[in-house]
């Protein structure tokens, strides 16, 4: 047998077009006669629109039209995650503001011109008179007495109030526990910053009434039905194409006003219309992540048994409820409160609050990093309170290994896990037992080393769709795929999901190659075009490999079954005597008689000699609705040194042991972990959107927002364990978000461990040198460490 393609870190099939500059992203696509759209955006966080004068703009060279909210007859941008039993309010989100703006960047008017510079000049020339209103950015403050009301129909700015667990039962556990620790945790706003800014271009054919929209989307089929809904066009007349997409991290899931506006303008004017945001515009209008104020408590016994966790979460929604926003601090957050521990009591009250910030929504990890952080932070606090080594405390409370189902207090049934093995492996790699001695020695010479250890599990590859319905998600969570083989034996795999950097064209081709024996180079994965591909719900939540991968595995197996019967017929043998290996069917006992998969494909197309009842062609499709989530897990460890004179943190080592089941392409898996770790570590160390009190985004460009750079990180040390998912056809779990979920608390706890001797117990993220230095000074003024 040749080397298995499944499990091989082959080079990515995407890369030749990317390393040569030949790939075409949305803004790279040109249409003759295209008009450029620029959006006049509110400079105020909260204001009434008194008047708009576009006369000067309209008179400028190259300007074709200016439209305001009163001109645009689009339906409101919908919210698509309607959390039940939460008294959810979904305030209207017009594509252009009508009467009132609710965050800096809210669109007020659009300008269409023949050139992008001229469009922007004209947008600057539109005079809007505002009556400024008091603004509120902090979600806890926005939910408080006397806060300015942002939407008349959202009383107290409370968009929803979601409760998980039983408050009385939680009280009983906490009231009788030996130890209760608490902390107010700020999950600061983050700017997703996919390197490709968002872009959209629309073209309308009035004769056929067909709209084509090219846009930066993680889920073109979802964009299609939302654009259909807001424009009133029939869904089968809307074609959405997500061409090459340069990263998303959740920020390209939502349907934004801009995509609706280019569509509307293209229909109205009868010419193609394009819009591409600048980075500064991206920071104002493309969704932000996180933005929680959490009041968290954990209960434990004196001998180190974790008894329960609970939190009240104020989650900032921004000025409007984005597409999936209500689901993030609720379903995707609270349900993870048990983590990998045997803890029986969980309670969460999550309050979604309208603020005058940019709308928030799913950002890599989406609710789960915020849960894992609070859990791991509180475990370290318990360890300190009962004077137990935090590693020992975790070890005592890890759920033992299980292979097929483990129900936890949040009602989730984890699919499979072996947390202790991953935990011990990571500790071995880090040399934990020696580190504590090295740390003590360093301290004796005035150096502050720290270690952070995170054990985690998370839920991804969400499904089944019945669960989606039960939790208010306005869609299904299945995926579909078609494996189509041409007469010459080349494969096109059509998928409804829409990868945008994950390497799925390679990973998914490896699944098909493994199942059917085609060379991987003969397999093309087609995605991103609603006309060419079958329905799918998109690429997010680490679901493409688990869900689309399963659909492809099943479709491939159907083809293989057909091939086996046809091969038997062609070789005049009994089906039961057919043996398969490496893409070839042979008759048991007659090894020289064989039909390759390519031979069979050709004969299926020719259909000259088919078995009775078999249809011609060589193509199979599969709709796949996963029976459960998948639950990857692992342990991450960071070692840092803090310079107590400057507050500077040096991340010296980072060890990640992750278990996502069998790895289809270990290099791609490693890349997902590397990138995820940096994104999460950067939340701990440097990233954070900062607003002024009146709602101006102060970190409004890359000059001000601290993006992680190459020189902030060491090479990462990766390890893995392999625990297959029992319910998945090839056993795999998602790995797109684990790095981000695990790394923020790992790095944070390492820094706080280093600072413990100085008496520092808490610092709000990000741990910039200024904040760390300030915390050291404050602790020192309070008598320092003990």
């Amino acid at each position, binding site marked *: 047998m040749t080397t298995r393609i499944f499990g091989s870190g082959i080079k990515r099939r995407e890369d030749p077009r990317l*390393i040569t500059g*030949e790939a075409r992203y949305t803004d790279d696509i040109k249409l003759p006669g295209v008009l450029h759209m620029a959006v006049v955006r509110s400079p105020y966080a909260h204001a009434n629109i008194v008047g708009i004068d576009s006369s000067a703009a309209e008179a400028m060279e190259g300007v074709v039209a200016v439209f305001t909210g009163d001109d645009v007859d689009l339906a409101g941008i919908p919210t698509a995650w309607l959390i039940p039993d939460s008294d959810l309010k979904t305030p209207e989100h017009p594509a252009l503001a009508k009467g009132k703006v609710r965050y800096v960047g809210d669109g007020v008017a659009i300008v269409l011109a023949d*050139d992008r510079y001229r469009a922007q000049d004209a947008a600057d020339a539109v005079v809007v008179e505002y009556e400024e209103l008091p603004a509120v950015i902090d979600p806890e403050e926005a939910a408080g007495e006397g806060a300015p009301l942002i939407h008349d129909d959202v009383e107290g700015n409370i968009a929803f109030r979601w409760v998980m667990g039983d408050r009385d039962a939680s009280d009983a556990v906490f009231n009788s526990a030996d130890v209760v620790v608490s902390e107010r945790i700020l999950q600061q706003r983050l700017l997703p910053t996919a390197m490709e800014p968002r872009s959209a271009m629309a073209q309308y054919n009035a004769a056929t009434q067909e709209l084509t929209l090219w846009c930066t989307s993680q889920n073109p089929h979802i964009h299609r039905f939302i654009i259909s809904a807001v424009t009133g066009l029939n869904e089968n007349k809307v074609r959405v194409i997500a061409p090459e997409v*340069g*990263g998303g991290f959740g920020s390209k899931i939502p349907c934004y006003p801009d995509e609706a506006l280019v569509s509307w303008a293209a229909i109205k004017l009868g010419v193609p219309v394009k819009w591409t945001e600048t980075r500064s515009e991206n920071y104002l209008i493309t969704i932000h992540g996180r933005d929680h104020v959490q009041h968290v408590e954990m209960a434990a016994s004196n001998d180190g048994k974790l008894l329960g966790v609970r939190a009240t979460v104020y989650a900032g929604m921004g000025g409007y409820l984005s597409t999936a926003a209500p689901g993030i601090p609720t379903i995707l957050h609270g349900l993870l409160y048990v983590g990998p521990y045997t803890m029986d009591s969980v309670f969460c009250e999550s309050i979604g609050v309208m603020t005058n910030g940019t709308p928030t929504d799913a950002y890599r990890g989406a609710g789960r990093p915020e849960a894992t952080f609070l859990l791991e932070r509180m475990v370290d606090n318990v360890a300190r309170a009962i004077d137990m080594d935090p590693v020992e405390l975790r070890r005592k409370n890890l759920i033992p290994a299980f292979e097929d189902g483990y129900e936890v207090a949040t009602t989730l049934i984890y699919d499979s896990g072996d947390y202790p093995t991953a935990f011990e492996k990571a500790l071995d790699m880090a040399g934990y037992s020696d580190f504590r001695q090295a740390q003590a020695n360093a301290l004796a010479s005035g150096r502050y080393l720290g270690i952070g250890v995170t054990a985690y599990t998370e839920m991804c590859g969400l499904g089944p769709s019945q669960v989606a319905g039960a939790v208010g998600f306005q869609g299904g969570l299945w995926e579909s795929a078609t494996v189509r083989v041409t007469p010459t034996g080349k494969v096109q795999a059509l998928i409804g999901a829409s990868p945008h*950097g994950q390497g799925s064209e390679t990973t998914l081709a490896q699944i098909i190659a493994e199942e059917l024996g085609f060379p991987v180079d003969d397999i093309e994965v087609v995605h991103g075009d609603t006309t060419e591909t079958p329905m799918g719900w998109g690429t997010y939540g680490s679901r493409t490999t688990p869900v689309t991968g399963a659909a492809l595995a099943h479709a491939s197996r159907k083809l293989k079954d057909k091939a086996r019967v046809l091969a038997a017929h062609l070789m005049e043998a009994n089906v039961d005597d057919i043996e398969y290996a490496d893409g070839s069917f042979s008759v048991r006992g007659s090894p020289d008689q064989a039909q390759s998969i390519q031979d069979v494909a050709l004969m299926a197309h020719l259909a000259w000699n088919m078995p009775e009842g078999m249809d011609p062609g060589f193509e199979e499709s599969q709709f796949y609705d996963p029976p459960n989530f998948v639950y990857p897990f692992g342990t991450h460890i960071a070692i840092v040194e803090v310079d107590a004179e400057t507050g500077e943190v040096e991340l010296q080592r980072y060890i990640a042991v992750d278990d996502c089941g069998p790895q289809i392409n270990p290099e791609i898996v490693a890349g997902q972990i590397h990138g995820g770790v*940096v994104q999460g570590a950067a939340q701990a160390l440097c990233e954070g959107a900062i607003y002024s009190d009146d709602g101006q985004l102060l970190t409004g*460009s890359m000059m001000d927002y601290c993006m992680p750079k190459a020189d902030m990180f060491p090479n990462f040390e990766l390890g893995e364990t392999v625990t297959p998912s029992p319910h998945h056809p090839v056993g795999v779990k998602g790995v797109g978000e684990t790095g981000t979920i695990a790394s923020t608390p790992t790095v944070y706890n390492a820094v706080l461990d280093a600072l413990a001797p100085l008496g520092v117990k808490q610092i709000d993220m990000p741990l910039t040198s200024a904040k760390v230095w300030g915390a050291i000074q404050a602790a020192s003024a309070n008598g320092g460490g003990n």
Partner: protein
Amino acid sequence: MQVSMTVNGVAQEADVDPRTLLVHFLREALDLTGTKIGCDTSQCGACTVHLNGKVLKSCTLLAVQADGCEVTTIEGLAEGGEHHPMQTAFWENHGLQCGYCTPGMIMASAAFVRDNPGASEAEIRHYLEGNICRCTGYHNIVKAVKQVADSAAGA
């Protein structure tokens, strides 16, 4: 305003609005869309090209300032139909994911290694400060650049 320059070995002449940035000239007038735009403050490096052999962020220069210059973009990096060693190294080492920062990363790294064969990992990480990637965590980019740097030094 009239501007002429040699781009990827081809002489180009055009009449441009004087305020046109070089990156917009390359992308819009010459349809060389391999050069990307990732920010508007010259932080991200997605628009990196070579100007007279030197590394340049093409959003920092007006097209008219490049008058008479030789410009190389990602489309012109390969020679004789063969990938440049830096392109090969990025591919072999999984030094890219979404690919959007990649042209700028490769252009910056190719010139850096040409001028600094044998560069250390720390030097590479320090140099790459001017190019931002959101996907890879830099690990495999550094690995790719180091491979070419080692090879250039005859290691």
